[in-house]
């Protein structure tokens, strides 16, 4: 090669190199000068965001400033894959430390694909991970350990190739102690961040669930109605209870600000504030937390005793309509919803036949039974169909003549009083105190043989509505039911039948078609207690701003007045006073609040969930609810309390009586309210357990195994009756069940003498022995049981003497 050739080629090389740099410089000029403005805008678009500042949700206090719900910070551990160390060993060290701290597996895959990798474009070189199934769906709202069953590495790698800056939530709601450890080791854990998000914590869980409700993401199908109110799709809103009702107060106003963010979307600084954030207002309730706790406890205890699955108790201040306590059982834990409920948890709750998600205090519809009797009493007096002196003689049964053959007594329909022997001559006051059915049949429906007219359906309905029945009270809670005050048209439309006098009879004692919510009834009695005003019951007393300043005070709101002459109202009040304070008043034996002058009314409402399981052998309804409503002190009432205990267990029937089940619950509540020491339990419970049977000691019995039936559930069942010499069922007789010689259960016969025992699981070869616990000399039954068989048994008293009349039907 000649010198000249070398020089030419050298020159060409230099020219090419210069040309290459000129091309680069030209592109530089093109990017920075020609398109500079566009790229500056893109760079700004990268880093500036218009961000919402979430307003912290208001909290809720009870009347004594006891905090009921609060916002608790939740710490989540997050990994940003792009920030993990590039060196695979160092990354493995981060994972193993995280695994140690959080007690999570690093990987759950059997053959982890690991490769040393130190090249550039770390994530892309891991192309083998892109073939992994993308199982990891990251949902920031689901409050779970979302990487399960994946390990930490699996979760991080799932989206790493496609979104290396996407935050991967490794663990949620992490213990603050572990969080502080991670913070301390921050330098050794690159790529690991802690994210703090607020979570609603319901401090008293199930105790206040129905009242407080819960929050959650806006349901997609309802978003249209939220959108005009300045909500975003990702916002959390109140979905039930007070959280829903007072949403507009609790939510506050979201702030809006311009922020600068880094590539992971984390805020670096605030550039400008466009709308200042305002935290939500706080609510102060009229609720008394202590009373609520005492109520729930007493109610649950009573329900357990009679094996009832549902119960309600409400206490309110009759002078204002303020709710002091409101319990609906069974309940649920509303924290499940605030942290994101799983499908399984939700289906368990929503498929429970006792509907724990429903607030039975405001949405449960039940026949009121005898506590309805204030309505015919008020109506009769006001309309003049009865006076204070009017008496009817109760012989235990009233025969309603057949409509077409009034003279044929065989066709007449009997209507019984709960007391089979009758109450004798009864006036309005004693009728209420004794809860005399026969009196109210006639007041309500008239009695044609005596040419007595009665109120009739229309007027009875009017007075029911005057007390606020058949219509929602308007309490500040969502989901309230209105109940049902039937009329002729209603029956024609729903049953295609004519309204009969018998229907009016049933309605007069709170049976038949009339349905009420416990809240309606307690409000009706509240109006009697306060002298005739119906207030709108309410839970929220005051709305306060975040600094504690009063924003709005809820004033008592009158929704109706009793159109009732004060002297007549006084008569009704006398009757209610008698129910507790007369020696033979229906609640007298069970009401125990020393030093407090109270009035009230018991009720036992027959109902039938499923025919024919709820019928006894005579075809009569044997399942009943217990009611009791009371106000105290009688002359200047401060509190009205209603107690309701549902009587029916699915399938098998349990009868509960207002007096004996519901009254003690109300007593406990009032004792708490009036600060009276509990001195019962010592001798009180003994009374309950013993001496309740009406059989005298030494009564002789005959025991019979009547036959067997197939039993559709697991295990075996024995059911039977305890009968007196007349073949009538006798309640409160203790029956012991022994399996292979050991006592496994003690049953108390129900209102119709019925008792029922299910084996807890499947039976193999067992010998059961059934005997009367209080009568060791009585014969017992002993038989080998087989799986899937139901045994029908009977104990019948043999003594020739008359036993006391058995209790049955309405009190």
């Amino acid at each position: 090669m000649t010198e000249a050739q070398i020089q030419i080629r050298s020159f060409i090389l230099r020219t090419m190199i210069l040309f290459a740099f000129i091309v680069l410089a030209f592109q530089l000029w093109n990017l920075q000068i020609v398109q500079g403005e566009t790229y500056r805008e893109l760079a700004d678009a990268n880093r500036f965001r218009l961000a919402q500042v979430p307003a912290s949700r208001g909290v809720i206090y009870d009347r004594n400033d006891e905090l009921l719900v609060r916002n608790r910070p939740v710490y989540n551990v997050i990994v940003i894959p792009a920030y993990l160390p590039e060196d695979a060993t160092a990354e493995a060290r981060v994972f193993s430390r995280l695994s140690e701290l959080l007690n999570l597996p690093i990987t759950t895959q059997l053959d982890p694909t690991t490769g040393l990798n130190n090249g550039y474009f770390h994530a892309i070189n891991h192309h083998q991970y892109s073939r992994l199934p993308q199982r990891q769906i990251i949902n920031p709202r689901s409050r779970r350990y979302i990487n399960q069953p994946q390990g930490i590495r699996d979760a991080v790698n799932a989206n790493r190739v496609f979104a290396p800056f996407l935050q991967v939530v490794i663990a949620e709601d992490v213990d603050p102690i572990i969080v502080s450890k991670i913070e301390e080791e921050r330098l050794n854990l690159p790529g690991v961040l802690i994210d703090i998000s607020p979570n609603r914590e319901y401090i008293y869980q199930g105790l206040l669930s129905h009242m407080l409700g819960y929050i959650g993401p806006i349901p997609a199908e309802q978003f249209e109605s939220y959108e005009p109110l300045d909500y975003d799709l990702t916002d959390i809103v109140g979905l039930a209870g007070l959280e829903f009702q007072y949403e507009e107060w609790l939510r506050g106003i979201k702030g809006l600000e311009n922020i600068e963010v880094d590539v992971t979307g984390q805020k670096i600084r605030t550039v400008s504030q466009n709308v200042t954030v305002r935290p939500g207002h706080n609510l102060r309730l009229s609720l008394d937390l202590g009373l609520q706790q005492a109520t729930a406890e007493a109610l649950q205890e009573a329900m357990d005793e009679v094996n009832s699955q549902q119960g309600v108790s409400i206490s309110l201040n009759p002078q204002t309509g303020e709710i002091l306590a409101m319990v609906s059982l069974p309940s649920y834990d509303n924290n499940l919803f605030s942290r994101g409920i799983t499908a399984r948890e939700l289906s368990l709750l929503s498929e429970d036949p006792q509907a724990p998600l429903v607030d039975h205090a405001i949405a449960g519809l039940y026949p009121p039974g005898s506590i309805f009797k204030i309505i015919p009493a008020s109506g009769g007096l006001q309309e003049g169909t009865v006076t204070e002196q009017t008496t009817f003689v109760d012989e235990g049964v009233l025969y309603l003549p057949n409509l077409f053959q009034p003279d044929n007594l065989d066709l007449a329909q009997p209507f019984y009083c709960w007391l089979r022997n009758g109450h004798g001559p009864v006036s309005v006051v004693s009728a209420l105190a004794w809860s005399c059915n026969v009196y109210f049949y006639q007041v309500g429906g008239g009695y044609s043989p005596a040419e007595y007219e009665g109120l009739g359906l229309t007027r009875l309905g009017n007075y029911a509505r005057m007390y606020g029945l058949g219509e929602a009270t308007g309490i500040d809670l969502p989901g309230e039911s209105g109940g049902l005050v039937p009329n002729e048209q209603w029956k024609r439309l729903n049953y295609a039948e004519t309204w009969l006098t018998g229907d009016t009879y049933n309605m007069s004692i709170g049976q038949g078609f009339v349905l009420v919510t416990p809240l309606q009834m307690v409000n009706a009695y509240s109006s009697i207690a306060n002298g005739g005003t119906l207030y709108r019951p309410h839970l929220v007393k005051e709305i306060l701003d975040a600094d504690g300043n009063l924003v709005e005070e809820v004033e008592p709101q009158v929704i109706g007045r009793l159109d009732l002459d004060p002297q007549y109202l006084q008569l009704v009040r006398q009757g209610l006073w008698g129910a507790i304070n007369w020696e033979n008043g229906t609640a007298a034996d069970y009401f125990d609040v020393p030093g407090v002058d109270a009035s009230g009314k018991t009720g036992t409402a027959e109902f039938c969930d499923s025919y024919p399981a709820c019928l006894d052998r005579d075809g009569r309804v044997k399942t009943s609810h217990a009611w009791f409503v009371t106000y105290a002190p009688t002359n200047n009432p401060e509190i009205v309390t209603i107690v309701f205990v549902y009587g029916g267990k699915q399938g098998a029937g349990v009868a509960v009586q207002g007096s004996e089940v519901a009254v003690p619950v109300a007593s406990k509540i009032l004792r708490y309210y009036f600060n009276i020491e509990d001195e019962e339990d010592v001798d009180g419970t003994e009374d309950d357990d013993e001496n309740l049977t009406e059989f005298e000691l030494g009564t002789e019995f005959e025991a019979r195994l009547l036959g067997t039936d197939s039993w559709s559930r697991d295990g075996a069942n024995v059911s039977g009756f305890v009968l007196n010499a007349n073949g009538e069922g006798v309640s409160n007789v203790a029956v012991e069940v022994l399996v292979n010689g050991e006592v496994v259960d003690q049953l108390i016969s129900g209102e119709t003498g019925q008792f029922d025992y299910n084996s807890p699981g499947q039976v193999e070869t067992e010998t059961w022995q059934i005997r009367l616990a209080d009568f060791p000399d009585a014969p017992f039954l002993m038989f080998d049981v087989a799986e899937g068989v139901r045994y029908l048994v009977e104990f019948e008293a043999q003594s020739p003497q008359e036993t006391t009349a058995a209790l049955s039907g309405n009190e």
Partner: protein
Amino acid sequence: MDRRIWRQFDLVLVGIVVLLILYGVIMIFSANQNQEDLRELWWTQLTRAGFGLVVLVLVAAIDYRYYASLHRFLYVVMLVFLGTLFIAAELTAGTLRWLDFTLFPVQPSEIAKIVIIIVTAKILAERDGEMSKFSNLLVAISLVVPPLVLIYLQPDLGTTIITAVVWLIMVLMAGGNLFQIGLLGLGGVLASPVVWLTMAEYQRERVLLFLNPDQTDPSYFNIQQALISIGSGGLLGKGFSIGTQNQLHFLRVRHTDFIFSVIGEELGMLGAILLFLLIIGVIWRILRAADLTKDPFGRLICIGVAALVFFQSFVNLGVNLGLLPVTGTPLPFVSYGGSSLFAFLIALGLVQSVLMRHKALDFEEV
């Protein structure tokens, strides 16, 4: 050793290189200042540069002609290294470009580039003036293909192409016949479907990405962010250590492959042109050494190093400016990374060694 030869040591070249390294160190500091685990990297780079300059002087002190006698041995050792790496990579089912030396990690393909330059220079110098013969061209090709295949299989397409281009420039500068090389190039084009089929999936993705940008891909994100960084820098830049793309980490692999984007954003067109001038200065000083050297072996070494500095810079800058597909190539002397820095300082040591001895050679010949 004659002490007078040190007078020929090109201090201007070393001075420009030191400026480039310091430029890089400052930008590495800016790129990582708010990322705790990487905050100290600028210091690491600076100490490595100091160490590397010592290595440069040591390499310069050794007579480069010594390597000519060793070229067969160097070639075999290089193939063994690359082969070992390939087998190890097969076993670990990942891309493995590093061998863990106890002193510092060196990427064998970086060393391979230098060995290929020395061996090629030797082969071409032996056939000085006869390179227009097709048989000699085939000899040169047959020597370069085995290491290229091994590098390609690592897989490291970027280094393969850079090495091939360096080889091509050296052949042309040694008098290679343009027509023959053109024929070979045609053959290469015809063989490209084979190359495409043997490419790793990610490599194909990157080429496709370059041809047809998909905005959802993270690689596209990186390139797009690099363009935004450079473009938003404007004439004067946003100011040192306050570039938003850089500081808020929108720009990825900031301190290595995309260090030029940091310069473009923070120091603007002026800073970028300054960098261009420094790199051109380095290349020119190396080419000056080539011109001064009459010994074909020494001259071709210098041309090889100049071609390496040029083409690797061109590829890196081209990627940053969106002119070339992403390859993961560091910017010589500027990007963070000990392996690349050492390789280039050793290469400069070779150039100095050649330069220092070009006069002595004259005397011997006279």
